[in-house]
């Protein structure tokens, strides 16, 4: 049976014909749309490497069926920078060495963007660590990751303060 779905991926509408309902959002992105920035670390929702934003929220794309997300607005790592201009989170990850091998990095960055958007962690390192615990990093770049997120959070607060001043 064929399924016609329509997704907005990184701001671009993609009409997809799926002959197979088993296709996960992750495999749709990687194998069919060739957006390989999002990674498969475990395929079972246990590592977070596949994190993308769906309708503004961070989820594990490996445990999402593509057909079930017809109409969704998806943001992947490929859609985060503006051309050569890095997103503040991306720049912060570089500045704080929030990665080593880089495999978990797209998922970490999408998760960080989601975390900041959720507005729960603020500038509390403990809340940031807890909030980012759904993204495993076997290289152990956690210290840099947390520092990067806190740095961006601080920057946002300062930008807000400047705007309202």
């Amino acid at each position, binding site marked *: 049976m064929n399924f016609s779905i329509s997704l907005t991926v990184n701001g671009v509408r993609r009409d997809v014909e799926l002959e197979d309902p088993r296709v996960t959002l992750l495999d749709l992105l990687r194998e069919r749309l060739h957006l390989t920035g999002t990674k498969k670390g475990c395929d079972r929702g246990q590592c977070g490497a596949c994190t993308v934003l769906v309708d503004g*929220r961070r989820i594990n794309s490996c445990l999402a069926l593509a057909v*079930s997300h017809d109409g969704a607005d998806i943001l992947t790592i490929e859609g985060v920078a503006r051309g050569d201009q890095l997103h503040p989170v991306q720049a912060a990850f570089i500045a704080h060495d929030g990665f080593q091998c880089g495999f978990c990095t797209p998922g970490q960055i999408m998760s960080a963007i989601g975390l900041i958007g959720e507005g729960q962690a603020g500038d509390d390192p403990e809340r940031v660590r*807890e909030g980012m615990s*759904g*993204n495993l990093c076997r290289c152990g770049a956690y210290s840099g990751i947390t520092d990067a997120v806190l740095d961006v959070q601080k920057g946002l607060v300062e930008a807000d303060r400047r705007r309202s001043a």
Partner: protein
Amino acid sequence: MKTFDYVRPTTISDAIAAAAEPGAAYLASGTNLLDLMKGGVSRPHRLVDVTRLPGLDRIEHLPDGGVRIGALVRNADLAHDPDFAKSYPAVAEALLSGASAQLRNAATVGGNLLQRTRCGYFYDVASACNKREPGAGCDARNGENRLHAVLGWSEACIATHPSDFCVPLVALDAVAEIEGRTGRREVAIEALHRLPGDTPEQESVLEPGDLIVALRLPGEARMFSTHARYLKVRERTSYAFAIVSATAALRIEQGTIRDARLALGGVAPKPWRAHQAEQTLAGSSPTPAAFRRAAEAALVDAKPSGDNRFKIELAQRILVRALTLAAAGTPERMPALPASPFSSVSRSDPGEIYEA
């Protein structure tokens, strides 16, 4: 995974009709079902996607003071709803201690209630498991079972229910509203999950096609909001299932416990309400001795199902701790590490001396 029919009905009655057939399963976010399908544990031939059914994603405050939560409400949305978190803090804390932010963003209330065990033999399709294949046997019974049940288990199955969310729900007398082939009915969460007995494959009282449409917490449950905690022991600081967990919710008036609600997680095939233990506390002062008595009562029927005797002691201790923390009062703000024994980490300074 196996190929399946995929249908996405737009009405509840269509959903029920599609799901009532053998081999069909409801799909909400899929965070449990898809994992089971990828592991070959579940092999439905039809998925009935309920995510677009109307009216199931609201949190409604009821005239009697209770709250009705649509089954499609996301775990994260419920936990972060300010009014809900304030009124039912132990439930919010339990939700936030489970899984990861990504999973909580996707997982639904209904799905959380029905999540299946994490028993390694259940997941290992080459092992004998009476849940997966009635009559096949239980390889956990004489296998690696340090994490298995100490209450409510049978020779046929010693698996535990992994949900955090369900633990305070049973303590607070939550109710599931169900639509099915025979119409609408309600089942207390405490009665929703079945003990394995001889039929561990029957995990709940749901009939084919039954769809949980809402979860309701009674108005009375709000009365515990000032003294309610959920606590969880696990083998890493976050993103891990409970070894044991406990909720304690107290109504304290003039220094006396008027009413206590207690439940345990990680110890049984279903979230374990501790009625006997609650009774020992009614009218007591909230003292360590009273809490220990309650904990002993809660685990009085506990028996190891394998190398897990330590869980009995641990479950008693966590219940005492949950009671102690509940008696101290619900924190103003959700802790940074919800449900963790490490409520806060003070970044220790070499200059700081700890007290002996």
